């Protein structure tokens, strides 16, 4: 095998990570081989043009199917605390999404209140998701949840300070507005990391975690550090769409916490 062919195989194998782990365990080798055959037949460019749609559509189907067919006996109903945290997360994500409705009623006070409620929802989700996925990797899960809680708490603290003495947002970058902006950076980056950790642990729905990660990065990029934010442009529209997906991700995670059955603790976990 040439190194170029090996590179294509590795890249394709990476794409296959979108499938559930049990599916990959059975079929990834065969799929890589079939992709190699396909490349040989129709050419590398054409094979790669077809691959993403093929993988994404069928991987989504496998995830939905897996969610339906997880053995009932291996799962437990959500705890009351889990349901509550999930519902708070749904509300939080909903409040974030409300920002995309162009209302004249959005006074600065209402915007800040909306953001506070969103932050509380994000904190609830971080705690709820950690409780659910800790068995799969306690330290990694904590490394995702703690930064989310701390950064969102900090952000809320600044918002509450601004309630008391409303500094102009987006005005001169002076203390404490500058610190407020830095807390926003920390919040978006920690949310993105949390999405990545959740995706890696694989207990929650992978698409929700992936969407959270992408949406958080879009929100961070949208702060203008990379010159990506430009009002009225296509880039701005794309950014806003991805940021809206970020809100949707919190709602989806909340729905999963509140209503989807959770994995039963493993024997080793319950012994420990």
């Amino acid at each position, binding site marked *: 095998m040439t190194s170029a062919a090996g590179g294509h195989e590795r890249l394709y194998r990476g794409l296959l990570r979108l499938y559930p782990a049990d599916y990959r365990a059975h079929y990834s080798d065969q799929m890589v081989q079939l992709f190699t055959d396909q490349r040989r037949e129709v050419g590398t460019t054409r094979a790669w043009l077809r691959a993403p749609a*093929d993988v994404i559509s069928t991987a989504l189907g496998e995830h939905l199917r897996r969610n339906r067919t997880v053995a009932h006996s291996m799962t437990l109903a959500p705890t009351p605390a889990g349901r509550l945290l999930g519902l708070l997360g749904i509300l939080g994500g909903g409040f974030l999404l409300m920002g995309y409705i162009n209302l004249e009623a959005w006074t600065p006070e209402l915007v800040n209140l909306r953001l506070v409620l969103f932050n509380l929802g994000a904190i609830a989700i971080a705690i709820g998701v950690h409780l659910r996925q800790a068995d799969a990797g306690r330290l990694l899960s904590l490394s995702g949840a703690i930064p989310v809680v701390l950064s969102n708490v900090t952000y809320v603290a600044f918002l509450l300070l601004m309630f008391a003495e409303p500094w102009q947002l987006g005005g001169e970058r002076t203390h404490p507005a500058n610190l407020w902006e830095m807390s926003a950076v920390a919040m978006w980056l920690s949310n993105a990391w949390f999405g990545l950790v959740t995706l890696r642990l694989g207990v929650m729905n992978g698409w929700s975690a992936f969407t959270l990660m992408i949406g958080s990065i879009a929100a961070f990029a949208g702060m203008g550090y990379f010159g990506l934010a430009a009002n009225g442009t296509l880039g701005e529209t794309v950014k806003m769409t991805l940021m809206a997906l970020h809100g949707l991700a919190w709602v989806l995670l909340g729905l999963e916490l509140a209503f989807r059955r959770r994995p039963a603790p493993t024997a080793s976990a319950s012994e420990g």
Partner: protein
Amino acid sequence: MSARQTDSGSQPAISRTAMLILLAIGPEERHGYAIMGEVARITDGATKLGPGGVYTTIRRLLEDGLIEESDERPDPEMDDQRRRYYRLTGLGRAVVATEARRLESLVAAAKPWALEAR
């Protein structure tokens, strides 16, 4: 789920992709690449399945008991030994026959006017 119960009887009806893969396997034992090629051939190139489409459907057909994996491996000089071959089960053959008869009756219903009108 590739197979589901119909209102009219106990035989399952299957998705179009699943039916194409069953037809592509036919009376032979075939591996994924051969199945992909055969699906393109029998649909005159109208349906080109990718690896995802092939193997997610194969998985469901295996679970539904419509196909099974062959234990035999090809001669290493003739083919790659890592390939897995699939063949229809008795149930798989019955499903293909039922679906073919169903399609046949639809074609018969259309023939007097829709097909003759061309």
